[in-house]
């Protein structure tokens, strides 16, 4: 029974990781850009929500009303003004620019907020749970996060396959030059894609900020989990990303059950084993 409970927790944790990973996967899918600042942006979203909560006295969920549009705009502008200039055959510039962004965000947050742990408070719902049989308790909040992760994937799927914008995303992803010939302003498409990626990042940041504590330097760990979920699932596949997140969540939960010290390590090891045995992940869509 203890094990079933562990597996359920791992599954729900996987939902959080897929939420981390979706933004990374989306931006990579449309413009082949790997954003090293991804994890730090998740943390930045947590801090932004924290500030909004402190300043306006609203709850973290209400803060999304401000955080989401802010992040969309931020992503749109960063892509349009900075990242678009780095895209090309050379992989170094986008990597260094996002790495630079990562270091700037970490240290700026440290400068303003110090290295203290913070948390977003949602009240009693955080610890509420319902029972399944006699021994298994499922947390309502983790379940809600998992549901939001799936809802996000469904929404993005609908956006990609049922809208004019989604058609532009896919065409640009296939062949950006040909898309330009069809009259598509690919720079704007990239900016919108990053904007949407940032909205997902903001959702992940706020939801995770309620679940666990964060500090200015917790970004890299979030990036690595997101990255592992994307690679396990297979590049470019959004449902694969959910799968990858769940595999990672389960691995960590099982490892943590054996010995709390092993939790993170088990996740990394499962990732390396997948890399060894199945380097393209389970549902690859894009060639490396």
């Amino acid at each position: 029974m203890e094990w079933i409970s562990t597996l359920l927790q791992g599954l729900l944790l996987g939902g959080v990781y897929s939420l981390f990973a979706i933004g990374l996967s989306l931006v990579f899918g449309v413009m082949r850009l790997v954003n090293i600042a991804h994890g730090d942006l998740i943390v930045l979203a947590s801090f932004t929500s924290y500030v909004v909560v402190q300043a306006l006295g609203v709850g973290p969920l209400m803060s999304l009303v401000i955080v989401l549009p802010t992040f969309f705009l931020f992503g749109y502008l960063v892509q349009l003004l900075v990242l678009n200039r780095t895209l090309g055959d050379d992989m170094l510039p986008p990597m260094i620019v996002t790495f630079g962004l990562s270091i700037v965000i970490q240290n700026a947050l440290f400068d303003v907020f110090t290295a203290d742990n913070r948390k977003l408070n949602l009240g009693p719902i955080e610890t509420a749970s319902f029972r399944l049989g006699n021994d298994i308790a499922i947390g309502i909040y983790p379940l809600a996060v998992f549901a939001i992760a799936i809802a996000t994937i469904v929404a993005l799927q609908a956006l990609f396959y049922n809208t004019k914008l989604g058609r532009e995303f896919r065409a640009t992803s296939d062949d950006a030059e040909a898309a330009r010939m069809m009259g598509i302003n690919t720079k704007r498409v990239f900016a919108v894609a990053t904007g949407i990626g940032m909205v997902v990042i903001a959702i992940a940041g706020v939801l995770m900020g309620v679940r666990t504590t964060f500090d200015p330097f917790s970004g890299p760990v979030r990036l690595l989990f997101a990255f592992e979920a994307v690679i396990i699932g297979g590049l470019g596949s959004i449902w694969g990303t959910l799968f990858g997140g769940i595999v990672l969540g389960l691995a960590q939960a099982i490892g943590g059950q054996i010995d709390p010290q092993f939790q993170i390590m088990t996740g990394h090891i499962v990732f390396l084993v997948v890399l060894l045995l199945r380097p393209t992940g389970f549902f690859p869509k894009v060639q490396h």
Partner: protein
Amino acid sequence: MTNQTYIVARATTASKAALVIMVSCVVVLLLVPLTGDRGSMRLIVEICYFLALAQMWNLLAGYAGLLSVGQQAFSGFGGYMLFAFVVYGGLSPLISLPLAGILAGIVSLPVAILMFRLSGPYFAIGTWVTAEVFKLVFFEIPLGGGSGMSLPIQAIRDISPTTEGRELIIYLTALAIAVGSVALVYSMLRSRFGLALTAVRDNERASASVGIDSFRLKLGVFVTVAAFTGMVGALIFLQKLRISPGSAFDVMEWSAGIIFIVVIGGIGRIEGPFVGVAVYFLLRETTANYGAWYMILLGLLAIVIMLFARQGLWGFLAERYRLTVFPIERRVRTVEPVEKAKPSNGISDTAISNLSLPPF
């Protein structure tokens, strides 16, 4: 046309002048201990190992195209191996230094084979994950665990009975490692190995068609760099006398810092790390009172460089004023048919007929 001879020249007047300046610099640095200024000596040791790490990352990323964000795995591992050799093997720290490097080279082999399945930015993050695994492993094994360990007093006395003597030995070792790193990269790039590396960097497929095995070539670079990085790591923690997983595998200091140094100075040029290290220490020492601000400035500078002068500060100057300190490029020029291809000033001219591709 048929009788035309080509000669391949590498040295320039500027590079010869630069060599003289470099040698003088090393001589001056050798004289610093006579002043007895221990603060400066410690700073120079630090500059030396940052330069060596930067040279290694430059060789890896700038010449072999392997954008690793996980080199802290090898510097940290090297540091730990030094402690292991000293504490459990009873070896002297100075002998442990190269041994730690060799071990780092050996563990880098399986890492490389796994990581080479990833390319570009995925390789970058994959190596980062590997370094995290190294860190987590050292949390668990009996080398101090999470809280780390110190070098025993006895071992420290082994180096030299006095603090001054120990600092002098570490100073000289650091100087040797810095000079060694530059010499290693320089000689590697001037050899056939370097020629093959440049060929792969410029066009991997075309170079494969002339028989260059790019996998083995990159593997060779990766392992060499890991070994040297491990040795530098051993020196770093020999100077610090303490090691812990958090400090040994710190991505910020040993990866981000180093990468920015190389990029700001000029990636793919031996001169780049020199300029980058200068910028790094200038920023760090002048903003010492403002906490993390030097990292913010460093990050911003790296972004600006990537957007407006991808060749880095040195590359920008070199292209403008045609400077080369380390002549590793080969300039082909034609010579009148009658005249024999006589090496103008001796040191580095090769007739093109002697130039064949290396056996990789």
